[in-house]
């Protein structure tokens, strides 16, 4: 190209590029498996995320974590275990994706291998803890909850011990392992965050055998801001569901009590050196774009334009989209047997949301261990819970076999 570029051509090109960008942004909705999950079609979500995770690309941990979420909600516990283990391995690795990580410092941040925010790492470990708790493997469950607490230690200095639900579940595990002093310490940390939670009580832990984990809302949304859209932040996604009431058989067990808010965890995640790099990239990109537009020298314009193209400063906004916003617990003693269970999800004013009500049958309460169930406020859920059967992968110990034999 020779001679000074024509202003009209550049203006037309910019307008066309802006229109294309707008159309692209308008068409870019949520991925299909995410939509399937949110409309309550859990099998479609599981299949969709499994297909994505099978690609084993830079998003492997993200897809595996989402696969785990969908699978644990649908009751495919073995698949959920496998998916969360795979996701955690990458999320906690310091070596995986080194080259991509280095490239992301000088170009688009989304080039790097996704390893998640501290609260996302924490949730992957928390779900693993729940899976092992369901199996009655309390030491491995405690390991999952401890690791969830550890993940949150990467958050802002003043908010490192706010994972109340993980502290509570850790307290339950320790109490089941007869470590009552350890349970008291963990429970005190949970109480510090939610002093009004009626279930944060050692006596209730010891007397209860039925634990419900109830998830409501949708994960806070990650968005770009700052120079060159180089920084990321989280905003709350408002949903109608805010709480839940539980009925087992003919008895109302009352309301589930909030024990963790992911929006607060996301907001308090803290900053890191990566944010400084991103901010610098954004300022340089904005400066390059401004230079490209206002410079009279075509070579300076071209150079600045090429620099702006090469220096993709936009923040990486990949996120675990199907996480809930709030995690609540409901704890009770229920005599062993098989029950109907009803969960009514409530809005912030306490009114029932009929589209989310769930009616489950054949909810089994075993005598030999704690019974933990996880429910999520999603449409079209309910039915025979034997579909959501307890996992059977744990090799039975001799004692368990003898117990079953004696019972038989």
């Amino acid at each position, binding site marked *: 190209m020779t001679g000074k570029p024509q202003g009209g051509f550049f203006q037309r090109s910019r307008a066309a590029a802006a229109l294309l960008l707008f159309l692209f942004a308008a068409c870019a909705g949520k991925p299909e498996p995410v939509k399937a999950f949110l409309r309550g079609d859990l099998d479609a979500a599981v299949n969709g995320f499994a297909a994505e995770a099978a690609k084993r690309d830079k998003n492997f941990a993200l897809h595996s974590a989402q696969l785990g979420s969908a699978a644990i909600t649908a009751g495919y516990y073995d698949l959920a275990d496998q998916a969360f283990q795979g996701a955690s391995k990458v999320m906690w690795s310091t070596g*995986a994706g080194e080259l991509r990580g280095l490239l992301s410092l000088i170009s688009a941040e989304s080039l790097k291998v996704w390893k998640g925010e501290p609260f996302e790492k924490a949730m992957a470990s928390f779900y693993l803890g729940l899976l092992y708790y369901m199996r009655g493997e309390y030491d491995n469950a405690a390991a999952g909850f401890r690791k969830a607490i550890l993940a949150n230690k990467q958050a802002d200095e003043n908010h490192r011990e706010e994972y109340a639900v993980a502290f509570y579940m850790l307290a339950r595990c320790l109490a089941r392992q007869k470590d009552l002093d350890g349970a008291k310490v963990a429970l005190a940390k949970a109480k510090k965050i939610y002093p009004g939670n009626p279930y944060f009580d050692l006596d209730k832990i010891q007397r209860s055998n039925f634990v419900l984990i109830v998830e409501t809302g949708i994960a806070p949304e990650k968005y770009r801001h700052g120079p060159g859209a180089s920084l990321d932040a989280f905003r709350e996604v408002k949903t109608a569901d805010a709480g839940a009431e539980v009925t087992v058989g003919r008895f109302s067990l009352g309301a589930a009590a909030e024990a963790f808010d992911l929006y607060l965890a996301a907001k308090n995640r803290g900053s890191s050196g990566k944010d400084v790099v991103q901010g610098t990239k954004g300022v340089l990109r904005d400066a390059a774009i401004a230079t490209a537009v206002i410079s009279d020298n075509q070579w300076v314009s071209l150079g600045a334009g090429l620099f702006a193209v090469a220096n993709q400063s936009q923040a990486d906004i990949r996120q675990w989209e199907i996480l809930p916003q709030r995690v609540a617990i409901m704890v009770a003693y229920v005599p062993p047997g098989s029950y109907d269970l009803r969960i009514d999800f409530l809005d912030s004013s306490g009114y029932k949301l009929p589209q989310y009500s769930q009616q489950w049958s054949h909810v089994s309460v075993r005598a030999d261990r704690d019974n933990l169930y996880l429910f999520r406020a999603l449409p079209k859920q309910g039915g025979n819970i034997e579909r959501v059967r307890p996992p059977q992968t744990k090799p039975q110990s001799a004692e368990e076999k003898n117990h079953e034999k004696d019972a038989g």
Partner: protein
Amino acid sequence: MSKKWLLLLLVMGFVVACAPKTNRVDVDSDDSMDDTETTSKDLETVTQNMARGLIQVPQIANAKTAPRIVFADVTNNTNEILNKNMFLRKIRTLLMKNAAGRMIFVDRDRWAEIQKEREMKRAGTVTASGKKMMSGADFILTGVLDSLDKASGGRRSTYTRYSFRLTDAESGDIYWEDAYEVKKVGKAGLYDR
């Protein structure tokens, strides 16, 4: 060689370097995931040390009749979800290979199946070569895995202690205990939060 060929070779080298691949490596090599958790190398080192230590216990080494050992559960007090009984199974395999006949292992994991087989033999449903008493254990081997973890920003350190002990199944006396300790420190890249 012309510049064009040199460039082509460089591009091909880059493509080959970036191609996905799977290598077979030694089980006692460090893995490339670079985290601070238990690896196959730890499993190898722990189990070999423990098996070596067990063979040298005087009550086993000098026993006139081979003592019977039961492997009980391992308790996991770490921050890592582990297939914890893998340690005991690996120790047993090593002992079976290297100290066959000097100790006998009692299989309690198959208790129900053995009972069922015995019942079928007693009932004449299947053939039997003679009655035997179920073996009692002379010693119980147990393990505890502990860890101390610290994390701050992108830094993390994990101290893990894998300890095992041999207890007399009659008196409760502890005849042997050994531990393997490892501390690992990791730092995430600047690009990882």
